[in-house]
């Protein structure tokens, strides 16, 4: 037959097409953004009033804790060390420290 088959390109590839287009929900969790950090917060748990502001203001949503027990803390894997929690804590109960390289 005269027609030459361009086998490599035209070979039927029935793969899922989502490559590069569609991502699974919440899959960003695999990206540990803690590596962004040059400073790290320390929640001192001394004067905490349970105002929740650290949870509200964290751009990453990594702060967790309980109003009642006043034992807020952060997820070390993802905290980018921006320092907003320390800056905004109304009773200065959070302090930033340089990460030891």
């Amino acid at each position, binding site marked *: 037959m005269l027609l030459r088959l361009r086998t490599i390109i035209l070979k039927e590839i029935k793969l899922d097409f989502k490559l590069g287009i569609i*991502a699974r929900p*919440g899959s*960003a*969790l695999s990206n540990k953004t803690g590596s962004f950090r040059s400073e790290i917060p320390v929640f001192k748990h001394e004067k905490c009033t349970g105002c929740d502001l650290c949870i509200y203001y964290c*751009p990453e949503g990594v702060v967790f804790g309980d109003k009642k027990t006043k034992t807020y803390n952060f*997820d070390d894997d993802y905290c980018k060390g921006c320092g907003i929690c320390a800056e905004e804590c109304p009773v200065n109960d959070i302090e930033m420290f340089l990460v030891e390289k």
Partner: protein
Amino acid sequence: MLTNILTKEDTHKQLFTMGHTGCSGCAQSMAVKLIMQVLGKNTIATSATGCLEVFSTKFPESSWNIPWIHSLFENSAAIASGIEAALQITGKKEGTTVLSQAGDGGTADIGLQALSGMFERGHDVLYVCYDNGAYMNTGYQRSGLTPYDSYTTTSPSGKISFGNNRPKKYMPEIAMAHKIPYTAVASAGYPIDLQKKVKKTLSIKGPKYLQVDVPCVPGWKYEPRYSVKIAQLAVQSGLYPLFEAEYGKITSVKKISKKVPVEEYLKLQGRFKHLFKNEAGKAEIEKIQKIADENIEQFGLL
């Protein structure tokens, strides 16, 4: 308003999840997180091209735990219109929120036509404009919402220039002119006020416009920890009035609790650094103070 975030595991279940590559201290990601906490999982979101889209969906990763779509820069509102139409015709609209998001450029410049169309056609969509006052995704170029005298890379200050020589386009009034059911301006500096406004949109059918002031660390040139502080100063100086409007009429304003001179706001940001160099800069600061004072009077902020 907060979802119960009691344990580390809880933080991983948020609808806009960590692991995105936004800048350290990014106020936009803060606002998105807060908005998603209110809207809940029955939300379908669109994003215009911009920082949010880039830092939240780097294939194969996505920070979204809700159905989310990005297509282009200028069509977030039109995509949302299509989604809303599809939900309506298939009977899935009831109980589902359609959220359309863009930055200030994607809203007030290139996306204004599509947004106006969405408003005018009356789609039941919440449109959120994250206003950081310039094209941050491409490297801090001037947009229609860049404030007066701000340095940007395309409105630089120079020997004969103080930066952007045009006032900020008043986008919320453009939205209000469409007589849509709800328009609101909020700020990342006031998360409870922001969440209250988002919650209100859930009970309103039709197009809703929410503009949120979101300071940008690299664009505005300040230290990451000041994101909230700067957002609050914008409000307290009168430069960013927060209010609500229904069908084009203002229904509530957030009063200034402690008025601060604009200088307090400006001096924290590298984008206004050139105003503090000489006498001529002082005169420019006076002009910015006048803008704030006019806002205070117009909206009755005191």
